[in-house]
């Protein structure tokens, strides 16, 4: 967020050394504090002091004098730059030119600076600041006269001369070489925080993860960024274009049904999706356009709405690299990717465009995929106190899927490890969305409003059970098993908005905050599911045909009470109304006494009732219910950089429209979650350390259980999770390390047996190293980067007392950037481990020979993890920093 956030209003003591004089700062701060008082964006005097700190310089890099020679006096180049949330610098724009050579050298130097990033509510945020790059003269003891420097480069300084020094004081700049004396300017002590308003943290399980250099760790898609949060494991048996199945802290959240997912607050979950109510396909996100994500592992924030059962994840998009960047990737299994990113220089990092075309033949059988996606956003200002965003995204994909493979067939040699049981599996999908947000200060309030419109279509063909489910019905012509391939299609239009008003004031000598907000969305969904005959590809049966009009309208209030300066009680309540109007176009599929002439043959959706009396084949059901969800978090500290938190909250997952019955109150799935955590955050010179430890417990009254016959998860009984999570983030100029461990025990309430498929031990480490290399290439100093991702998944509980295999994965990358050019080598599954990404246990029948007796007893099936793959990316950037 940002607002006209001249967050120079923040804590004086933390102003960096290069900021201007204290007197001027005080004037600025005073005016800003007055202007922005009582807004919730860290813009009041007390709030600002409490919540926002500007960036501080931790590493200076001296600029190189153009031509390698220095003048007799300093040359100062004023710049505006963005300090990313990870402390690196981007989007450097020269405010006043000192000549092309000086400008370029100044930009290059500034890009190598490193900062302790600005922090808002303790969370690192990107900030735009003014600074000055100083080209220091060899002997600059005395201020030089205001005269032009030598028009020709001065001789290089002697070896013994002091090296150029880079500072950013508020000193008058020298006139440009060869140009007219510039107007003396003094850099302003303003810090403009970019992006939408940060959400106040809810305790130790509120992970605001800046991607930063960790983008170097190879990831297939934006879903995999979720692994930066503890306890996340992803599987995918549905193919390259199928949404990842997400396991989060003991939850089998399916394809997002138990995680509220959003991108820049635009909802991703698809209400009424037949594959899973709340299905969240994140593949439309271009990973390079993700700046950060906030993962809250529990329903602790009143802003969280439907599907926030295991928690929520909100992606913040943006592009730090300015200019036009083009990348081409090619690699294993015919994989090719063309990517173009565009960040207008001088604009916010939240103004960007990007488009991608991707194709892969896929490893093994039936894993080819083709997709295209584009995202764009413009961040603009209206006056001094208003920011707005216009964004859009387009996505289309088509893919095939290997699905699940029975282990015994691989063991017997009938199938290869990367084979498929049914080559008809796959899918297609499109998503188009537009959104507009505006954030403004009005009086004592900061107001935010967002409107969004989403069109989404999805087709999915999956076959989990082979040839088991095509039972002979009396009204059907006698037939053999025709195959269990499910052909599911969802066509959905979503419109909605959200908004909030935030204010704050002082009581008990502390800043107290209040936010009131709403969320509203409406969904019009057509969903069908048919069965496809394996021999002919012809649909032979309609399982489901629903048209649903769904609404979710929520109101919430959130307060932050601070009785003492080290005690904050955040909390409030949210109430949601869910309404359903569902037309089942195939309401009758069986009658006990059919009429001799009706139904005709194998018709799925019957137009008769008991005894053969006529009826229409459809039936409409409607209902509505409300759900009140209180949530609270107690934050204590910090005490010597250590904070403690207790959090408690209730969440909800709305019901699948296929379960709706006329006038029967919607049976929500409700979750109650509680946790206790401790957080340590401190910076040692240039090393930033954030460590967390969280103990948690979560109870769901109606959990979802995977049903292979339905091809999705269906309502089951209550479950409880208890566990512990530890997380560590280390960041400095060289290293960025993000590591976490999660231990959890998930059990059914009635039997106290383990919930199957959920990993009880998840370990993840993402490491990025980056440094300037001690060599010169093309007249420039190249920068080398390494990325390494390590994942360990313990043996997951499977049905019938079984355990899955352990999974260990290593992915690595090496990149070399020199000027505008970049070369990156990525290797996934470095050890070429043959592992089973997902393992299930259920009855399936893929007969070895036609007519062989079926296999009806549960057996192990799996989705093969990808073998080692190598990708090479060539990139170039023009026109930007």
């Amino acid at each position: 967020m940002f607002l006209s956030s001249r967050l120079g209003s923040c804590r004086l003591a933390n102003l960096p050394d290069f900021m201007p004089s204290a007197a001027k700062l005080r004037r600025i701060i005073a005016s800003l504090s007055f202007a922005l008082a009582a807004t919730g964006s860290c813009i009041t005097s007390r709030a600002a002091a409490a919540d926002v700190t500007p960036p501080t310089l931790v590493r200076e890099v001296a600029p190189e004098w153009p031509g390698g020679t220095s003048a007799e006096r300093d040359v100062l180049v004023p710049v505006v730059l963005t300090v990313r949330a990870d402390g690196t610098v981007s989007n450097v724009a020269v405010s006043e030119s000192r000549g092309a050579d000086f400008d370029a050298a100044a930009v290059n130097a500034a890009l190598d600076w490193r900062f302790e990033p600005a922090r808002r509510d303790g969370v690192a945020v990107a900030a735009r600041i003014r600074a000055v790059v100083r080209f220091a003269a060899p002997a600059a003891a005395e201020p030089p006269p205001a005269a032009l420097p030598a028009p020709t480069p001065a001789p290089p300084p002697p070896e013994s001369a002091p090296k150029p020094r880079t500072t950013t004081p508020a000193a008058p700049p020298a006139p440009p070489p060869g140009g007219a004396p510039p107007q003396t300017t003094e850099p302003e002590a303003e810090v403009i925080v970019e992006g939408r308003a940060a959400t106040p943290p809810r305790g130790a399980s509120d992970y605001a993860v800046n991607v930063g250099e960790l983008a170097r760790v190879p990831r297939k898609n934006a879903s995999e960024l979720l692994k930066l949060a503890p306890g996340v494991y992803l599987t995918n048996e549905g193919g390259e274009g199928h949404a990842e199945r997400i396991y989060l802290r003991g939850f089998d959240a399916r394809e997002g049904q138990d995680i509220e997912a959003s991108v820049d607050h635009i909802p991703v979950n698809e209400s009424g999706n037949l594959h899973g109510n709340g299905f969240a396909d994140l593949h439309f996100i271009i990973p390079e356009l993700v700046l950060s994500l906030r993962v809250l592992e529990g329903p602790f924030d009143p802003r969280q709405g439907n599907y926030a059962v295991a928690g929520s994840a909100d992606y913040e998009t943006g592009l730090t690299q300015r200019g036009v960047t083009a990348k081409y990737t090619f690699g294993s299994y015919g994989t090719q990717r063309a990517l173009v990113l565009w960040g207008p220089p001088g604009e916010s990092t939240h103004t960007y465009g990007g488009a991608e075309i991707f194709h892969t033949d896929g490893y093994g059988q039936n894993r080819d995929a083709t997709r295209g996606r584009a995202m764009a956003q413009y961040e603009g200002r209206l006056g001094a106190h208003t920011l707005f965003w216009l964004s859009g995204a387009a996505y289309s994909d088509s893919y095939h899927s290997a699905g699940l493979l029975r282990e015994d067939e691989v063991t017997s040699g009938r199938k290869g490890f990367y084979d498929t049981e049914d080559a008809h599996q796959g899918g297609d999908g499109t998503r188009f969305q537009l959104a507009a947000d505006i954030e403004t200060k009005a009086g004592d309030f900061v107001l935010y409003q967002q409107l969004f419109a989403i069109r989404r279509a999805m087709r999915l063909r999956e076959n989990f059970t082979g040839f088991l489910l095509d039972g002979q019905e009396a009204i059907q012509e006698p037939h053999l098993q025709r195959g269990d391939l499910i052909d599911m299609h969802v066509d959905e239009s979503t419109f909605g908005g959200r908004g909030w008003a935030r204010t704050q004031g002082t009581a008990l000598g502390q800043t107290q905050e209040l936010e009131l907000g709403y969320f509203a969305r409406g969904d019009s969904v057509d969903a069908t599911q048919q069965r496809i005959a394996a021999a002919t590809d012809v649909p032979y049966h309609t399982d489901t045909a629903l048209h649903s009009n769904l609404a979710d309208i929520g109101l919430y209030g959130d307060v932050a009470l601070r009785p003492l300066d080290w005690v904050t009680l955040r909390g409030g309540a949210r109430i949601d109304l869910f309404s359903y109007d569902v037309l089942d176009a195939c309401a009758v599929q069986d009658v006990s006494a059919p009429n001799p002439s009706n139904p005709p043959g194998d018709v799925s959706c019957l137009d008769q009732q008991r005894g053969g009396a006529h009826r229409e084949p459809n039936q409409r059901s409607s209902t509505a219910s409300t759900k009140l969800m209180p949530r609270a978090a107690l934050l204590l500290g910090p005490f010597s950089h250590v904070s403690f938190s207790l959090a408690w909250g209730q969440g909800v997952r709305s019901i699948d429209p296929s379960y709706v019955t006329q006038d029967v109150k919607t049976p929500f799935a409700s979750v109650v979650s509680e946790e206790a955590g401790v957080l340590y955050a401190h910076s040692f010179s240039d090393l930033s350390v954030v460590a967390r430890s969280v103990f948690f417990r979560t109870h769901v009254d109606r959990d979802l259980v995977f049903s292979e016959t339905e091809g999705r998860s269906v309502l089951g009984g209550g479950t409880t999770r208890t566990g512990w999570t530890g997380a560590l983030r280390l960041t400095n100029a060289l290293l960025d390390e993000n590591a976490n461990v999660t231990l959890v025990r998930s059990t059914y309430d009635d039997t106290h047996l383990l919930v199957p498929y959920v990993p009880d031990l998840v370990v993840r480490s993402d490491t990025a190293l980056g440094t300037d290399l001690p060599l010169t290439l093309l007249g420039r100093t190249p920068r080398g980067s390494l990325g390494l991702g390590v994942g360990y998944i313990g043996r997951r509980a499977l049905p019938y007392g079984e355990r899955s295999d352990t999974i260990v994965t290593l992915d690595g990358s090496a990149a070399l950037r020199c000027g505008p050019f970049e070369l990156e080598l990525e290797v996934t599954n470095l050890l070429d481990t043959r592992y089973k990404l997902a393992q299930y246990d259920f009855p399936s029948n893929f007969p070895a020979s036609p007519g062989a007796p079926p296999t009806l007893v549960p057996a192990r099936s799996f989705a093969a993890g990808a073998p080692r793959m190598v990708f090479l990316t060539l990139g170039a950037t023009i026109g930007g920093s």
Partner: protein
Amino acid sequence: MRTPNKSTRCLLAFVAVALTGCVGTTGGEEFSFQAFARGPEGVSAPYGFVNGKGYSVSLERARVHVGALYLNRSVPTSVSASTSCTLAGIYSAEVPGALDVDALSDVPQPFPITGDATSDRARTGEVWLTGGDVNDPSDTTVILDVAGTAAREGESHAFEGKLTIGENRVQPTPPAEPGLKPICKERIVSPIAVDVTPARGDHLTLAVEPAKMFANVDFSELTPNADGTLEFDDDPATATPASTNLYIGLRASSGVYSFTFEP
């Protein structure tokens, strides 16, 4: 005694949590087992018995072609409204392989493949009498092959019979319900009441009692062939009641087939 320091205590706490997180079960077991079939205990050819019609039968050949065995967790019911070949419940054991069972031998005859089971208690057994696709009516595999002599009131007759379950067993159905009587229902002997709980290391034995198949066979109803041997008719359209009763006996869900799961 030394008191563990703080870091040691933290480590122990971590290990304790780790252990509690990584133990436990979802319940039950999955395993493979050996499967056998045999005739009645102590029987050998010729197998003599008196049937319900007063015949002293001496069986010299009784071979039953078993296509597969299944055990289901659901409680057996005598009447099933469903026309599906398989039960709606969860199957807990299966032997999806064929075996020609010599029902006149009490020596366990192994199925050619191992079976698979879960440790769930089974309440219903199924014997699949099929030589191929249970849904394909065209299969002509001989399911029952019997021969022997039957004597009553001083009269003795040799008999033999070969029964198949194919097109010959397809039953007419009402026009509105063409799928009411699929051939699979003829081929699957179910529900057979069982009460067994598969356990790892145990083996499954199917016992076939051929005498029960002849319980209601009146041999006098059979027609002798050219060499005077009484012959069971495999065509229901022309079959005598005796032939029909043998077929009914072959498919009897009680008395003919029994399952044991033993170490």
